[in-house]
């Protein structure tokens, strides 16, 4: 149980003053305040599980990548026993960054300042001039290692936390795990990264990106309208909807959890009808998955899905699979089905982390995935499709990265910082009939409940001492 600790900001405002639970509003100030930023690094990023990458980025013993857990730099390394460790990338001697490369392979991470050396698991090996004992005698060697985070792997995804005795990753996922399993545990071979992540900086507060990641579907209708004008969702003359109206694409179910994880489960029925000409209600999940397999899966791989998942999850995957959503605090997943000009559908699998780099800056990291067993030619098509639509040059996401800086900038205005963001479009009908999964579920057009759950958990952590 969290201990409540209301913090008063320098001007007398409390964190709870920023959020109105009755009317579901958040003061705009939350999107820029430097004081809040410092607290977020301590109370959120140093407390919850943070997504750092995928084990296939470091397949060999000694492989490492450098990453960030909030404002802290870490080394993610595989040791001689194939275990993955996450250690603070700060030398306990004089606070030099120990590993200065983005990636590499080594069994000894040596600080270039005074030569203190560490194993991939963070243990102190020694310092130069051993006979003169230049690491001193006051602190024993076993206490001179790099500070170690607690690590958990899930579907090859690497998560770490500084909350050594806190909840497990599974507890943190909570009800979201049922759904995450359908994305990350699809095959025995598992997912693999198709290369290192893209990285670029945006002059925006991390929360602008992350609250959107909590399954905001509303913004797509305007911000991504081009998709329906000339892009993949441009309407054929005989199709439903009008012109660039993307709203038919926004129906389905949304799921949110008490830990701020969110999923937009977008309905596939229209695509199934287009591909088969049949009523989806008359097709079994196996039949639907075979005509429209999840991203990275071919029809030949569908029998493996049928073995690995229960009826409920298969129903979900063939009816309303999670396609976009976030894991709190700073992750986004996109497992999307993109129509191609030739009438086929190609999937894309991508994960983002939005790394806080100050109240006004974030780093956007984009990893692109396929199943290890995805045939090479399909992998190549998925990769090109993903690069063209998502991340750095992504025709979809360049609109998002241009929006967040404006939000961050205007949130500094004396007047504008006092107005509120509104999360008042409510799901009022609960889960659809026959919904197989747990969590809070809403049926129909995208609403605000998922993002509101994100802010509620933000508030819970920000007002918790322990």
């Amino acid at each position, binding site marked *: 149980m969290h201990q409540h600790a209301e913090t008063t900001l320098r001007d007398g405002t409390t964190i709870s003053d920023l959020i109105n639970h009755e009317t579901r509003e958040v003061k705009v100030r939350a999107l820029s305040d430097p004081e809040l930023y410092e607290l977020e690094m301590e109370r959120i990023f140093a407390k919850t599980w943070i997504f750092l990458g995928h084990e296939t980025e470091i397949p060999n013993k000694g492989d490492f990548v450098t990453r960030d857990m909030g404002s802290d730099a870490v080394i993610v390394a595989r040791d001689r026993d194939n275990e993955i460790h996450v250690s603070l990338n700060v030398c306990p001697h004089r606070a030099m960054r120990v590993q200065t490369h983005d990636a590499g392979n080594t069994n000894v991470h040596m600080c270039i300042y005074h030569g203190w050396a560490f194993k991939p698991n963070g243990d102190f090996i020694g310092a130069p001039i051993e006979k003169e004992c230049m690491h001193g005698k006051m602190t024993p060697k076993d206490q001179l290692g790099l500070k170690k985070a607690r690590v958990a792997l899930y579907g090859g995804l690497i998560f770490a936390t500084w909350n050594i005795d806190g909840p497990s990753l599974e507890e943190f996922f909570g009800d979201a795990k049922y759904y995450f399993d359908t994305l990350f545990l699809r095959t025995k071979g598992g997912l693999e990264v198709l290369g290192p992540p893209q990285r670029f900086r945006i002059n925006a507060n991390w929360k602008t990106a992350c609250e959107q990641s909590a399954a905001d579907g509303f913004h797509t209708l305007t911000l991504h*309208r081009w998709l329906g004008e*000339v892009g993949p969702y441009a309407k054929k003359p005989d199709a439903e909807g009008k012109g660039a109206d993307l709203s038919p694409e926004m129906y389905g179910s949304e799921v949110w959890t008490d830990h701020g994880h969110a999923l937009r489960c977008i309905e596939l029925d229209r695509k199934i009808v287009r591909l088969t000409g049949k009523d989806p209600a008359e097709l079994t999940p196996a039949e639907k998955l075979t005509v429209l397999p999840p991203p990275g899966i071919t029809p030949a791989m569908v029998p493996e899905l049928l073995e690995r998942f229960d009826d409920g999850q298969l129903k979900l995957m063939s009816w309303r699979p999670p396609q976009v959503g976030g894991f709190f605090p700073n992750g986004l997943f996109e497992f999307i089905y993109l129509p191609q000009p030739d009438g086929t559908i190609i999937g894309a699998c991508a994960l983002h982390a939005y790394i806080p780099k100050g109240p006004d800056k974030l780093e956007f990291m984009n990893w692109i995935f396929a199943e290890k067993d995805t045939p090479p030619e399909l992998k190549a098509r998925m*990769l090109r499709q993903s*690069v063209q639509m998502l991340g*750095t040059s992504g025709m979809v996401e*360049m609109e998002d990265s*241009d929006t967040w800086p404006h939000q961050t900038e205007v949130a500094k205005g004396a007047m504008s910082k006092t107005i509120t963001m509104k999360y008042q479009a409510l799901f009022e009908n609960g889960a659809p009939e026959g919904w197989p999964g747990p969590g809070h579920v809403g049926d129909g057009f995208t609403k605000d409940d998922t993002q509101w759950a994100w802010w509620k958990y933000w508030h819970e952590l920000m007002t918790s001492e322990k």
Partner: protein
Amino acid sequence: MEKNPLEPRPLPPSLRANRVPVGSPLYNDMVEFMYDEAELFDTLRLRDWIAMVAKDIEYTVPLRHTRATRDQDKSVVRTVQHMYDDYRSIMLRVMRVMDTRSAWGEDPPSRTKHMVSNIRVYRTDKEDEFKVHSYLLMTRNRFDHDKFDLIPCERHDVIRKTESGYQLARREVIIDQAVLGTPNLGIFL
């Protein structure tokens, strides 16, 4: 070994023996091509630019990695890249900006300057294709920002001579930053 299907078409080598002298008519043609292209980009005449692009183009921007001096060959990453375009996706980018009213990432458009320098031209083993190696410093400014995003990079191009003039057939842009200091590549490099 089978070619990695994720990797784009390799560029011909820059052999000093194949250098086209600075100031020669062919060299001047290439310089004019580069300057004309920069002007089309910076004045948003993207449809005119498309006419300078070959149908079989591959347009890629590798990732950069900070690696040790001895591992510099690993500092350019050609699996996942920042851009990975063919003619169709380039056309879609152009249509997005020119034919819709919702390409907000470039509406209003960035103000850019493509400053091309250090141009070197090489003959290749194909008579009608030339490799052009250049430096590009691009400045990008948006809205009322007082700062410029700087994108310093080098370009390795293949320019093809056709009946209708020269065309860009292959471009690889190697950016100097491991972490880009611009919020997207909604512009062409």
